[in-house]
């Protein structure tokens, strides 16, 4: 246990939390609009390989992340067309997206196994990054860590203070009422789904370009599903999602450190701990039926068909 330093632990916690944070904040917007996209895992892994491939081919991690966002969004277009225009079941379509994404990413990724991606630079704030403790923990990461935080703040502000946010929430609560008021339900949901796809793609690319950094088939290993659980855990509130992401980031970093420190607990038990803790948290969050029902958008997962 002596080998674990709090400073390093907290610093790597920020890094470990970023992929699920990005994916979860995107999914939060999607669910706030009343759409349940279970394809997060598929969009993440597609983003992971798109970002990886673009970054390797161009040598630029920035372009890689842009490619990842595009890749994730492109996959989410399929979901949007199926659920919004062809009125398919959200759950089934989301599963299809995940199954397809896993196969498709493995297909593109064949030539990239074992390749080393260009490294993503960390920001340099000069003196600030040298502040003891705070410097290494908070101020010496790459830009994506801060982009994730900025995205949480932006989503919170847009949902809470802007007209667009209000309409988005209205659509998620009652699409029929919103439609009757003249809001473009399908158009806004389409855009929300695209945003969710791009965010999930970024999250996936953060895994393949920074956190691991490497490409292996199925490398997201359930991160997309944990992101989905985070939205429930966060009760569809952006800052709570951030808190949840840091909690899970902490758990996954801690279990890796414990594995490395050679703790007398089976490795497999430590590896399954993030999933078990996710389940436990889900149970606690949804145990109170009335509160859980209040938090969830009322039209979540319901198909919208305008009759007039």
């Amino acid at each position, binding site marked *: 246990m002596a080998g674990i330093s709090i400073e390093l632990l907290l610093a790597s916690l920020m890094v470990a939390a970023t992929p699920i944070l990005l994916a979860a904040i995107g999914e939060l917007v999607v669910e706030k609009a009343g759409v349940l996209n279970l394809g997060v895992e598929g969009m993440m892994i597609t983003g992971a390989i798109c970002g990886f491939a673009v970054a390797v081919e161009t040598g630029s991690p920035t372009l890689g992340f842009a490619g990842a966002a595009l890749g994730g969004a492109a996959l989410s277009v*399929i979901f949007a067309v199926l659920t919004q225009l062809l009125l398919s079941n959200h759950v089934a379509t989301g599963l299809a997206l995940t199954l397809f994404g896993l196969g498709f990413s493995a297909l593109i990724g064949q030539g990239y196994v074992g390749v080393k991606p260009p490294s993503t630079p960390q920001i340099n704030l000069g003196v600030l990054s040298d502040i003891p403790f705070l410097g290494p923990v908070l101020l010496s990461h790459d830009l994506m860590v801060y982009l994730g935080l900025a995205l949480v703040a932006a989503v919170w502000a847009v949902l809470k203070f802007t007209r667009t946010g209000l309409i988005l929430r209205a659509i998620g609560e009652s699409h029929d009422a919103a439609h009757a008021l003249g809001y473009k339900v399908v158009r806004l949901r389409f855009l929300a789904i695209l945003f969710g796809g791009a965010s999930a793609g970024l999250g996936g690319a953060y895994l393949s370009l920074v956190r691991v950094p490497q490409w292996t088939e199925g490398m997201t290993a359930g991160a997309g599903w944990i992101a989905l659980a985070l939205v429930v855990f966060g009760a569809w509130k952006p800052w709570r999602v951030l808190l949840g992401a840091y909690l899970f980031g902490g758990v996954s970093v801690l279990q890796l450190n414990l594995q490395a420190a050679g703790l007398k607990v089976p490795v497999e038990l430590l590896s399954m701990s993030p999933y078990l803790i996710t389940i436990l948290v*889900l*149970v606690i969050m949804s145990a109170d039926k009335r509160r859980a029902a209040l938090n969830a958008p009322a039209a979540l997962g319901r198909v919208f068909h305008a009759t007039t």
Partner: protein
Amino acid sequence: MIRLEKRPTPSRMWTALTPLVAVLATLVAGGLMFAALGKDPFEALRTIFYDPLFNAQFAAYSRPQLLVKAGPLILIAIGLSMGFRAGIWNIGAEGQYIIGALAGGAVGLAFYPSDSVLIFPLMVIAGALGGWGWAMIPAILKTRFNTNEILVSLLLVYVAEQLLASMSLGLLRNPQGGGFPGSRNFQQYEAASNPELFAGTGMHWGVVAAFIAVIAAYVMLTRHLLGFQIRLTGAAPRAARFAGVIPTRLIVTCLGISGALAGLAGLFEVTGPAGQISIDFNSNYGFTAIIVAFLGRLHPVGILLAGLLMALTYIGGELAQFMLGLPAAAIQAFQGMLLFFLLAVDVLTNFRVRLIKREVA
């Protein structure tokens, strides 16, 4: 301008036709994908769908494989379709499949090297119970704590995979295996093995169980009260409650059935075609079965046909990998595409497409 008009009742014609349309569309899109990979699309499609069954050179090996691969897919999909019909989403069949194999396999290994005829039936029961128990976790969390069964059942797949790794490296490892991971080989342990019943057919007990499941599911859905309750809940959940359906009981039953069937599939696989409990004996049947269930329109007979078709893509995919160097992942993407097209054309079952001229006000 195109408008969709809700049909009063789903069209029977389109219910039957949509899987065919989806398969055709997938063949076209798949052909384009193979062409994009630099393979001759016609040759690729022929290798996947025709050669395994009719090519004199490969059919002798491939034909029996059809039942070997279709058996677990059908068995799992039948269970899943019960829940899916009632809006209960068990998507963690892969985990239940692994745990069924572990539980049943462990019972068999505990009696090694007994030659009692009771061993195999005992393993079958343990396998079903293992899968059932694993599915009871999301069921009870759902009914007691209102936890989303989709997320819990799926997250448990990753837990089951870690458990499988731990077991095949530790507790269930073959003590005479020279330190290699993996359990004893069931094919060399007669009392616990699940051999081919008729040489050259691929028929083993798992396939028999799959056929029994198809018939039982058909009878249950059309003749039994439980089947009626499942169909009613799927069509109108509120009406179902007034008709006396207890949602909690239905959730526990549906998840229990699908878990037990997935567990059975795992046990038959591990004692038969796979041969031993090893880290990667599971070949994603639990996830592919979701596609099978939808492709079969959640109907037992449909699932039987869909399972055979999906098994063919597995076998043909392997053949194409071997003959044309087509990547294995291409088949996985192909299967995913099939589900997309299926969901897309499904709109025709429930809606009528109307072309309307824009009226001038």
